[in-house]
């Protein structure tokens, strides 16, 4: 939880942050039918603080439909569509209006919603606020026509929205702030500016996880300390029989709740781990006991030892193949929480509140860090996959050479070409893959669906399996046509770290080149775009013997004539695809 700045402090801090931002701007357009100009700095500050170099543009006031048609290259759009202003004074006129006029007004707004959704379908992320009546109707017991209108219009958006649209539940924001403090009647009646600065402050925090997810900053792993973090008591001192972690014990209820919340995240694909200074056997006794909710099979990684926690977390990140900035660490100790914040500033640290009854609430607030727009089958099996990995690692040690080992895995790759059934997973791979990612372009489900249906791009997603289990869909390559058929560009090539070091990428590329050559392609262009995380693939195309055509510190361009070359297939990996060939 960050400290609360006053509005003036926030404006000053935002100005300072703005001077420090660099990198490609993340463009957000705000469309509204009321005045929301204070939202500008709240949104900027909220995203800049999270290292997103945001560039916010406001559309013309009360012109959502026209503005949405000329939105340009925005990465995201936020729509404030205020029910009270769909016609001037709708919050009271709705009650007295002629019924036919009322219905035809709703019909008109439905049509406008359709046009806006249609115009914005090419935008990766569109946040539309649900229509809300709380600011005007909070004390009404009976539903009136204003409420009725909100319900009908919300249903309509719900029924029409594509995968790029997120309906934001503004009522939750208003509940967090209070109705009284959310609404600014003075500026609503004088200037059509209904929302207070408290509202915008809360709204910006409420929506921040969505922007983090869209810019590939979703957290992936949740690591807990043990004593007084997962249970009440210190196992090494109090003994395993005296610690408390169930709702039936005196002080255990909050710990049972947090364990369940964590398990819920685990079931959605968040990797769970333990990092505790303890004797391994002491902790293991509890982990194996029936009161412990998280259970061994839900834990992807454990470091129960007396080493320093920063070193342990670093090792855990390496074992899980994720960046430190993908980790969240929970600890009750001031010392450990501060130490990790200092030593590993990339790790998000949640400290257990001193008042234990505040712990579940604080933990729920932190859960926003794991916001993920789509949960796919791969997520649900992820912990199982990391455990299978451990089994593979063991097998690895018993083989003389790496190649013998890889051969023994009996790997198979299955390629899906332009497969609409896996659009959510393809989008998610572009959003979440940071390390093995040549160009790091993020695409939403809406983008991917567009590519398949209307685009000049071909999408090759691939599944990998071996004798130990299934990895699911772990790689994606997007090929963009150039003028004519013979030259194409590799728009994106990325692969989950789970299958690194197995020559899967070379095997897939061999397949791809054959596929493209058979489709009449003779020349392949590709690029490596440097990010802080993708250094490991800086020379990927050199390894494939592409010719470097230009190079700058941040970018290398390549070209490869494929009319004559064939890549030698990796003979121990079988590749099949689902492509329909003419």
């Amino acid at each position, binding site marked *: 939880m960050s400290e609360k700045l*006053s*509005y*003036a402090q926030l404006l000053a801090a935002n100005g300072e942050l703005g001077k420090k931002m660099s990198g490609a701007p993340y463009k957000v357009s705000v469309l509204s039918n009321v005045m929301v100009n204070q939202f500008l700095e709240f949104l900027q500050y909220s995203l800049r603080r999270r290292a997103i170099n945001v560039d916010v543009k406001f559309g013309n006031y009360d012109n959502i439909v026209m503005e949405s048609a000329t939105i340009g290259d925005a990465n995201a759009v936020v729509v404030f569509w205020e029910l009270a202003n769909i016609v001037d004074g709708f919050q009271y006129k709705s009650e007295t209006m002629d019924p036919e006029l009322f219905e035809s007004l709703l019909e008109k707004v439905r049509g406008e919603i359709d046009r806006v959704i249609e115009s914005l379908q090419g935008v990766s992320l569109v946040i539309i606020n649900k229509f809300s009546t709380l600011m005007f109707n909070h004390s009404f017991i009976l539903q009136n026509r204003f409420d009725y209108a909100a319900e009908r219009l919300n249903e309509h958006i719900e029924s029409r929205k594509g995968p790029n649209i997120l309906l934001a539940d503004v009522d939750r924001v208003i509940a967090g702030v209070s109705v009284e403090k959310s609404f600014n009647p003075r500026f609503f009646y004088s200037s059509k500016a209904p929302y207070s*600065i408290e509202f915008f402050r809360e709204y910006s925090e409420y929506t921040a996880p969505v922007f983090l997810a869209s810019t590939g900053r979703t957290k992936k792993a949740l690591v807990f300390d043990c004593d007084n973090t997962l249970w009440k008591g210190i196992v090494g001192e109090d003994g395993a029989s005296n610690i408390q972690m169930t709702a039936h014990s005196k002080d255990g209820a909050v710990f049972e709740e947090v364990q369940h919340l964590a398990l819920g995240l685990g079931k959605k694909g968040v990797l769970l781990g333990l990092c505790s200074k303890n004797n391994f056997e002491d902790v293991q006794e509890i982990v194996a006991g029936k009161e412990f909710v998280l259970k061994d099979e839900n834990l992807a990684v454990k470091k129960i030892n007396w080493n320093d926690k920063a070193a342990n977390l670093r090792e855990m990140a390496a074992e899980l193949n994720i960046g430190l900035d993908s980790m969240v660490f929970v600890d009750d100790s001031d010392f450990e929480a501060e130490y990790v914040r200092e030593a590993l500033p990339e790790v998000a640290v949640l400290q257990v509140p001193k008042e234990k009854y505040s712990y579940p609430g604080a933990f729920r607030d932190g859960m926003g860090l794991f916001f993920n727009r789509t949960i796919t089958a791969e997520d649900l099996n992820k912990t199982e996959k990391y455990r299978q990995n451990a089994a593979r690692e063991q097998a690895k040690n018993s083989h003389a050479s790496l190649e013998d080992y890889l051969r023994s895995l009996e790997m198979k790759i299955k390629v899906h070409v332009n497969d609409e059934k896996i659009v959510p997973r393809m989008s998610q791979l572009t959003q979440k893959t940071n390390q093995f990612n040549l160009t790091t372009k993020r695409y939403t489900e809406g983008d991917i669906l567009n590519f398949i249906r209307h685009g000049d791009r071909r999408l090759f997603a691939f599944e990998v399996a071996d004798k130990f289990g299934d990895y699911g869909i772990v790689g994606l390559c997007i090929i963009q046509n150039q003028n004519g058929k013979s030259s194409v560009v590799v728009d994106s090539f990325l692969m989950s770290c789970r299958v690194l070091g197995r020559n899967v990428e070379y095997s897939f590329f061999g397949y791809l080149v054959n596929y493209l050559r058979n489709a009449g392609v003779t020349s392949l262009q590709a690029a490596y775009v440097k990010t802080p995380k993708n250094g490991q693939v800086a020379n990927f195309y050199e390894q494939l013997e592409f010719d470097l055509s230009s190079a700058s510190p941040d970018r290398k361009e390549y070209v490869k004539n494929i009319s004559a070359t064939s890549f030698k297939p990796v003979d121990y990996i079988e590749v099949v695809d689902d492509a329909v060939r003419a």
Partner: protein
Amino acid sequence: MTQSVPDRVRNVLSAVLGVPADSIGEFASPQTLEAWDSLKHMNLVLALEEEFGVSFSDEQMLEMLNFKLIVATVQEILGA
């Protein structure tokens, strides 16, 4: 460290308008500072109300035509 009312008003103005505090003179107004447009004026009112824990009446808002008048209005409400 308690700041005087004029200093606090000056800091709020500086933050809201995005101009250095020392560029805001006694008679700084929407006419002398380009950044001080009607939208910024609304932000200014909100920021001042929060800073001083006060609420301006419509008449008071109309009187807040320059730096000096804002300080006077705030002082009047605070009874200072």
